[in-house]
């Protein structure tokens, strides 16, 4: 067990994969100097510039070249800095990486990991603050992962590199410095959610940065006598229906909270699935459908705060929940 930051955990996972397999390479802007968040620190020194590849600011070709590398025997890890920049490479992600295996009848595989961090990055405004996980969950061929803790960033990045299909790996832009214990043996696998806090009155499902808001809201709810079960979904696609349905059937209601815009967010997919399967009350809490503004006052409007989530949770229990109500 070691205390690591979220960035160090990812770096450690990548270093381990690169030691184990000479075919694992990392490419993207500024990776040679350790990455702008320190998530590649020391890798060029250990593995050399031919495997930790500094690239031009050419997102389409960073991603497209990674597809060509993956088709010809390498396992590239692609740095896109933030999901917002990956939009310059959307053809390469959606039409190339995600389609090649199927479209070529299984002749080629695309074992790449594309790191596309999501979330509001304080003070960075509209083009650096999006949470677009639902876009990628919509595309057949992609696995979509959203680690929330250092331990998960270690385990899930290692698993993503092993995956064999293209993985959209979405770290959170504001969790890089989050510290936590990271066990040497991975404690997470792709496609499996984690019950982050047990509870009996309501299932609160979240992922990525919003998980921490959800845990804080559950803590406050507990002080008011309401037992909230918090699930960290960890993987957006394929999402762990089994764990979510089991928990929701036990608590009798489900609230999904995410940082992404609520409208057409992935919470809608989960809520609809749970409602269809169990016929229980469901609710979504996501951001308003506005760009993230620069001024703190504007950014705060686009964020879901702990207090806001708690308030939504109370209203849900009072109006729709079957077991308990809160004042």
């Amino acid at each position, binding site marked *: 067990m070691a205390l690591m930051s979220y960035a160090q955990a990812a770096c450690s996972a990548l270093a381990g994969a690169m030691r184990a397999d000479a075919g694992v390479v990392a490419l993207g802007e500024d990776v040679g100097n350790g990455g702008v968040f320190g998530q590649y620190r020391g890798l060029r020194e250990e593995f050399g510039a*031919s495997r930790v590849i500094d690239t031009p600011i050419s997102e389409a070709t960073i991603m497209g070249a990674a597809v060509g590398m993956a088709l010809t025997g390498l396992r590239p890890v692609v740095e896109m800095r933030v999901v917002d920049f990956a939009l310059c490479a959307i053809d390469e992600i959606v039409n190339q990486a995600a389609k090649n295996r199927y*479209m070529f009848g299984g*002749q080629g595989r695309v074992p790449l990991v594309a790191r596309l961090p999501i979330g509001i990055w304080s003070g960075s405004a509209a083009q650096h603050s999006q949470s677009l996980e639902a876009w990628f969950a919509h595309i057949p061929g992609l696995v979509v992962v959203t680690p929330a803790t250092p331990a998960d960033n270690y385990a899930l990045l290692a698993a993503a590199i092993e995956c*064999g*299909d293209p993985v959209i790996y979405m770290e959170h832009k504001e969790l890089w410095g989050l510290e936590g214990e990271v066990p040497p043996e991975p404690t997470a696998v792709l496609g499996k959610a984690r019950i982050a806090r047990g509870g009996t009155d309501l299932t609160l499902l979240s992922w990525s940065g919003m998980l921490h808001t959800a845990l804080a809201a559950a803590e406050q709810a507990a002080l008011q006598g309401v037992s909230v079960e918090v699930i960290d979904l960890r993987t957006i696609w*394929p999402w762990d229906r089994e764990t979510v349905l089991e928990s929701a059937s036990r608590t009798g209601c489900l609230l999904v909270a995410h940082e992404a815009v609520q409208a057409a967010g992935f919470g809608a997919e989960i809520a609809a699935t749970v409602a269809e399967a169990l016929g229980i009350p469901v609710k979504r809490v996501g951001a308003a459908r506005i760009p993230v503004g620069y001024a703190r006052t504007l950014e705060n409007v686009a964020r879901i705060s702990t207090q806001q989530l708690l308030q939504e949770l109370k209203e849900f229990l009072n109006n729709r929940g079957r077991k308990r109500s809160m004042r």
Partner: protein
Amino acid sequence: MAPDTSEANDSPAERLLPLYRTMARIRAFENAAEEASRGSVAAFGASSDAASMIRGPLHLSTGQEAVAAGICANLTRDDYLTSTHRGHGHTLAKGANITAMMCELFGRGAGTNKGKGGSMHIADFAVGMLGANGVVAAGIPIAVGAAHSAKIRGSKAIVACFFGDGAINRGPFLEGLNWAKIFELPVLFVCEDNRYSATTATDAMTAGDGAAARARGIGIPAESVDGNDVLAVDAMARELVARIRAGAGPQLLHALTYRVKGHVSVDAAAYRDPRELESALEGDPLKLAGLRLAALGVAAATVAKIDTEVRNEIDAALAAAHSAPATEPDEAYADVQDLGAGQWR
């Protein structure tokens, strides 16, 4: 099979005969495919016909065969190739299985891609053909990545990257060429200039002096060649491939040719002056190669025999494609992805 033309000391006739065969094979394949694609897609005023054996847009490279044949004659089976939406010729010239290709166009399980790609996504990884592509210029970054991979893995393979004249106006052209140059990657960029971007003459859409000038602007040596003269393409490709194999980094060849057919098989290209086509047909690459063979003293019967042989090959491929079973519907769920695959709704 790709012609074995590794002997650089072949006489011109010995060099030209296999190139002629490759071009004749491409022409015959595409003529047959065109015939089977009547009513393939609703576009250009044509309506789609459910009875059409080949579905969707079929992009023919008729008249451009010398580019594919001349380049691929200088590649080995281990070399990679990326193609465009107009990729039958490149695929055949790289040595792909003809029957499996025709089956692919017919949507058969025995197709190169199990019927999942069709003409526009045809690929044969067994011969290094990493795929045709439905998106203009999208093959360029993939080619660059394959070359980068070869360099990292210490492989001797090089990459031939085909793209059209329209592709040089997309960002991946600039990004990909710059990338190939800064990493000194073994890529032969081939701008197969058929002068049309769908229905639009590319000239009017392109500033400056085109692909070769743009390549030189970022330090990539570039040559231009008559893309209808297969011996000229072959000679130029031999030179550029030799440079790449010797470690000189990426090279670009601008091959000027002409798209004889419309954008897709159902496009009659009515937007074009018929005299332009007439004049272009004077320079048809198969016609030119036939004249050259005659001038080199090759008997007409020898050429006719090649024509017959490739026609027989294509007839056999067509017959096999007609009788092959359609791809099983269950195949729709295969090779999507391992984790998260299945009939999720």
